[in-house]
């Protein structure tokens, strides 16, 4: 990998973290396109993004905890239930073609962009951040 690409990855990674910290929208949405630019396939980029999310989440949760906002029993229940969903999601993602997976991801980006724009119209219908 060239020095330019490494620098690109570091800058985009940092930006993804800033956005995650500011909006509560995770870094994954920027990790995936960044990893695709770096040369990973859509599926590998998505899988790798999940690992990249972990340090961001740890940092974010650690900071949130000092505000005392986390409902830990609810988080545990949500997290455990999500494992079953994650198993099903892996089956879906691995059965789709790269092209379809990338297009679905692009649609997700459009939906999130619309959601963010919508937030700007009204006073804080969604959280302004953690």
């Amino acid at each position: 990998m060239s020095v330019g690409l490494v620098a690109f990855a570091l800058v985009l990674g940092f930006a993804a973290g800033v956005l995650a910290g500011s909006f509560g929208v995770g870094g994954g949405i920027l990790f995936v396109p960044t990893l695709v630019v770096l040369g990973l396939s859509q599926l590998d980029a998505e899988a790798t993004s999940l690992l990249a999310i972990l340090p961001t989440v740890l940092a974010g949760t650690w900071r949130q905890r000092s505000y005392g906002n986390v409902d830990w029993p609810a988080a545990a229940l949500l997290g455990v239930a999500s494992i079953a969903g994650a198993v099903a999601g892996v089956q879906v993602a691995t059965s789709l073609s790269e092209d379809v997976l990338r297009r679905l991801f692009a649609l997700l980006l459009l939906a999130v962009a619309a959601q963010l724009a919508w937030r700007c119209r009204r006073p804080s219908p969604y959280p302004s951040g953690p």
Partner: protein
Amino acid sequence: MTPKLVLIGLVAGLFSTIFGVGGGIVLVPLLILLAGFDTRPATATSLAAIGITALAGTILYAFEGHVDVAYAALVGLPAAAGAVAGTSLQQRVSSRALTLAFAFLLLVVAVWMLAG
């Protein structure tokens, strides 16, 4: 409350591995709209839940050889620093301008991915 949380968790998990995202995009609105959470606890609680979801997804995908640890570190570690910076930045910068800029960035990336 419990069945609702289980349902929300299932949806978030499905979302997470299909798209390679944490699932906060669906968790936060669903916690607010379906489970009656206030916005700040919803964001904080979703962040903690995402940790479990992303870990599960990583393990599942790693078994199939799809996880690249070096690349994950390359974007994930600067992101952790960025997340800490982002929380303090949030107090100072106009969030409206930042939100619109972020929305525009996502739009550009989406068009690029659809075209590519």
